[in-house]
């Protein structure tokens, strides 16, 4: 299979062509793509990892390295068919050496084979569908735990934190919500924790029947599978009805809008799990450095998947630093790469999954979603 060698002269922009012609030392550039929904309706999940990746590459280029890295953005608007066309463009015209992304599972699935055939190593910061790792793609990687890890991670944490005698599992009727709720229930079943369940329509606004079921179950902990809009409403109605059982949810509810929808008093103490590592203002160490730098570079607090985007870019930077500038060599390097990333220790399994499949636990403290740590280490405030 032909390799796409993309060492190009840095003055190749076609103006006066004076400096460093011929790809001499200190004048070459490796092009890395970033692909995801940058302007579509879910771009709020993709812009933070883009910013994270850009930050890592800017930091690297600022050190005036021999081989510079150029980041080229591809906006799929989250649409798989758009991703297919963009991959063709990125590989054929732009001759990218490696790719960060695609951001979502659907588009990752659509272009995985295409990238594998072209031999372009890719690292996704945010695609969590478990099936992606089962395609036998040799060039595909991700730095985020998959959906199958989330349920067990959350259940493990809850069992440790509350030693519940009974858990109540509730969700709305969307595919993501039901899947996550079932995964948490299965983990409780395995751990011998009895559960009761209920489910409501995504469009419902009155949850009084669910609230009464939860009250009469006398459960010690409530897990809600679903997104923040429904989660916030449910949480509000529970607390209004004086049901004070701890409320727990997953990455779909990990958003400041959960607090808005539930109201700050009701949201206080809600616990959220996520495969993503989002540093809050009170973190320490490498996360704190990241938090400060990110805030300086973008003016925003780091949001979802920002650290993962940074780590994905860092893996490629390490490869280039080690003198690998071709797609094949970079991919080879990724199979052995091992470093302490910002989000988690980065090391890939043979199928491209991250070795560390940590789930991170958050708690709403004083109205803000606050990082507590990995599900194995976190303790409630």
């Amino acid at each position: 299979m032909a390799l796409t060698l993309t060492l190009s002269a840095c003055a190749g922009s076609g103006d006066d062509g004076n400096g460093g012609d011929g790809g001499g030392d200190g004048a070459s550039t490796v092009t890395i793509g970033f692909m995801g929904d940058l302007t579509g309706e879910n771009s709020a999940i993709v812009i933070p990892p883009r910013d994270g990746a850009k930050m890592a590459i800017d930091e690297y280029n600022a050190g005036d390295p021999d081989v510079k890295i150029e980041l080229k953005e591809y906006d799929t608007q989250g649409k798989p068919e758009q991703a297919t066309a963009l991959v063709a463009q990125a590989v054929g015209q732009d001759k990218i050496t490696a790719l960060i992304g695609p951001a979502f599972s659907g588009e990752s699935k659509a272009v995985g084979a295409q990238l594998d055939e072209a031999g372009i190593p890719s690292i996704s910061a945010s695609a969590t569908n478990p099936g992606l790792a089962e395609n036998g793609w040799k060039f595909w990687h991700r730095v985020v735990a998959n959906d199958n890890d989330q349920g067990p991670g959350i259940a493990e944490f809850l069992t440790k934190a509350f030693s519940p005698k009974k858990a109540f599992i509730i969700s709305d009727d969307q595919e993501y919500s039901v899947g996550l709720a079932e995964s948490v229930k299965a983990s409780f079943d395995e751990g011998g924790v009895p559960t009761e369940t209920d489910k409501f329509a995504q469009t419902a606004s009155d949850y009084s029947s669910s609230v009464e079921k939860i009250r009469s179950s006398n459960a010690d902990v409530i897990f809600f599978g679903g997104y923040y809009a429904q989660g916030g409403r449910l949480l509000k109605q529970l607390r209004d009805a004086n049901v004070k059982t701890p409320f727990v949810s997953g990455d779909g509810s990990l958003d400041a809008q959960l607090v808005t929808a539930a109201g700050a008093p009701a949201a206080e103490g809600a616990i959220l799990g996520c495969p993503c590592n989002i540093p809050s203002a009170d973190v320490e160490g490498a996360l704190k450095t990241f938090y400060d730098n990110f805030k300086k570079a973008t003016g925003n607090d780091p949001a979802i998947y920002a650290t993962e985007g940074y780590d994905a870019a860092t893996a490629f930077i390490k490869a280039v630093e080690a003198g690998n500038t071709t797609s094949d060599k970079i991919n080879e390097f990724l199979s052995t790469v091992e470093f302490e990333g910002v989000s988690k220790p980065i090391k890939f399994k043979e199928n491209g999954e991250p070795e560390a499949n940590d789930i991170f636990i958050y708690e709403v403290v004083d109205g803000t979603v606050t990082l507590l740590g990995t599900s194995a280490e976190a303790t409630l405030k």
Partner: protein
Amino acid sequence: MLDDLSSQFLPSTVGGLAAGAIYALIALGYTMVYGVLRLINFAHSEIFMIGAFASLFVLITMGISAPLTGIALVGMLLLMMIVSMAAAGGAAVVLEQVAYKPLRKKGASRLAALISAIGASLFLQELFALIVIPEVFDTPGRNTVPVPRIADRDVLFSIGNANIRTDHVIVIVAALAMMIVLDQVVNRSRMGRGIRATAQDPEAAVLMGVNIDNVVRLTFLLGGAMAGVAGMLYAFEYENLIFNVGFILGVKAFTAAVLGGIGNIRGALVGGFALGLIENWGAIFLGSEWKDVTAFVVLVIVLMFRPTGILGESLQRARA
């Protein structure tokens, strides 16, 4: 199973009554317009939405940030109610002028009016999502807009294991009061007689000197005002609004109107409460995901035995 029944029956009944009161208020608008024009006003759900946002607008303008009590609470509720009724009633009249009257004047088929209704419904939703919510409420248009709390959720009294809270009482009492007022207006006043006459036989009513245009306008105004009250109570009770909040409630309210007997004002009341209760009672045994299924199964069964709904008799046949 029996445990579930005894522990959840009374609390679920309270929740069902509160939800049912809101269904019933919205159902009034469907049923009155149907009675007079034989038209299902699908944009009625957006009239409800406008009423709900009008209440939120009042709360924001008045700068409410903490729950109120006593006279201040009652005054604020009345103010919200008046503004919501005016906004929703006014919007309903404008809707009639813009979306239905031109068609009616040209003698267009009912199908054309139905399409016009759906178009108006989508237009109003998008108007709120794209302009009103971002500009007035300073929130991204498709996000949930939180409503500040104006009354604490205190338990007033208990019946068995059901705690009756202040907000439940306010919603149910306010809804019932408005429905009694409307029923009296339609049955006793001169304007109401015009509505009944038109519903019964539009042509004879015209011959007797009834101004049809005025009657239609009045019908939309009253139905819209009731939807405004429903919107205000919804904003107060559930404290979360979104641009398409009316859609599913509109479907439920329409169902309630048919269940009670469409065209029948008291039927809308019975249908609304029946639907709210059936949903919540069904959920005790089957789980909350079966709420909608239970409600529609009951609807089908009722219609099999009473094709015109529970109360059956419709507006035009009442008190001929």
